[in-house]
């Protein structure tokens, strides 16, 4: 896959009118692709990589210790007043994550933005 193909794959996400930004990073927090500015990218890559690791850990901790199949995180949505963060983790290899930042406001014609 050429880098151009990566652009092609991410295009419908990036072009979505509700999407504020897209960030792809590896599990160390190194950035592979971003549409956010450098400062925000660094901050999000750092914090979300750690947060994702904690989430994975928490999921294991509440799993039955003797379960034949281990549980695994498949998708995460963190909604806040200002935005929603969606994280698609690398379920198979645990090496990467895709983060999509979206506007939490949908379908509001008027200015009601109190939650």
């Amino acid at each position: 896959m050429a880098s151009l193909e990566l652009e092609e794959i991410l295009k419908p996400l990036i072009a979505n009118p509700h999407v504020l930004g897209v960030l792809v990073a590896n599990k160390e927090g190194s950035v592979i692709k971003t549409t956010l500015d450098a400062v925000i990218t660094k901050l999000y890559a750092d914090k979300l990589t750690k947060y994702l690791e904690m989430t994975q850990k928490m999921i294991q901790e509440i799993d039955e210790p003797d379960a034949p199949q281990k549980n695994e995180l498949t998708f995460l949505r963190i909604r806040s007043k200002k935005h929603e963060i969606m994280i698609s983790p690398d379920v198979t290899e645990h090496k990467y994550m895709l983060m999509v930042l979206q506007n939490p406001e949908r379908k509001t014609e008027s200015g009601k933005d109190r939650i």
Partner: protein
Amino acid sequence: EKKRKEELDKQKKVQLAKDLNDKERDKIIHSVEFTKFIDYSTKVALRALNETYDIITNYSESADLDSGDED
């Protein structure tokens, strides 16, 4: 004390996540595992985006709405 140092080291490592150079980035982007990951995870994210996701906007804090259409 040793455990704490390890924790600090670990934290430091994450905080100092290295910037990939073009060559390293290209190598990742061309790998089969990354291709699989990005293809799949993009589709999952797109699907999530296209859901009607309007769970919070319509409520005022006094919450005077009927109790939802609980099929």
